[in-house]
């Protein structure tokens, strides 16, 4: 099956800093998504991005499908950005394989 690796595993920032999270996947995929899991366990979809670049406010994501990686950019981080960021990839029937996540802590 597909292998999904995320880096870094942990990231600590001061409020206002920028960061880049990386996701590598082992095979060609037609489904690549980024999620944020908040401290209450809710998993929120940030981007559905099998290829190309998308932006949503302070967040943006880029997937280079031919090179099998995706990047999530967080600009001007806020304490509410804290949590776990998951990348997930898949092919058939929308089934997703999740990476192990990046734990982000933003200090005021």
């Amino acid at each position, binding site marked *: 099956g597909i292998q999904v690796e995320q880096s870094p595993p942990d990231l600590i920032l001061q409020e206002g800093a920028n960061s880049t999270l990386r996701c590598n996947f082992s095979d060609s995929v037609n489904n690549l998504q980024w999620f944020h899991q908040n401290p209450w*366990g809710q*998993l929120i*979809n940030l981007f*559905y991005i099998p290829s190309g670049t998308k932006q949503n406010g302070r967040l943006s994501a880029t997937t280079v499908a031919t090179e099998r990686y995706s990047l999530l950019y967080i600009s001007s981080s806020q304490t509410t950005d804290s949590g776990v960021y998951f990348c997930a990839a898949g092919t058939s029937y929308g*089934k*997703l394989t999740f*990476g192990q996540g990046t734990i982000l802590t933003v200090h005021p």
Partner: protein
Amino acid sequence: DAMVIQNPRYQVTQFGKPVTLSCSQTLNHNVMYWYQQKSSQAPKLLFHYYDKDFNNEADTPDNFQSRRPNTSFCFLDIRSPGLGDAAMYLCATGLGAPQHFGDGTRLSIL
């Protein structure tokens, strides 16, 4: 408004006592998924339904079963819960589009 609704939010059951978790969706999607997420781990797919077709992941234990009586509802049945089944169970929907998750049911085993 919530698009994927899971009940209950917290569930406590006894070792070996069958338990059922429920999920409903208002998006009228063909596909519904169940994931298991243990503490400090990533969600792991247990199975999915495409319409009424049930598809089990190869490493999902036989202890886990599922029912989908109609498009909107899907149930996860754990026939004889063991201590290792304590986890967050997440239901989701979405094919060829962003996958939307419910808030999950956190299952504890006494």
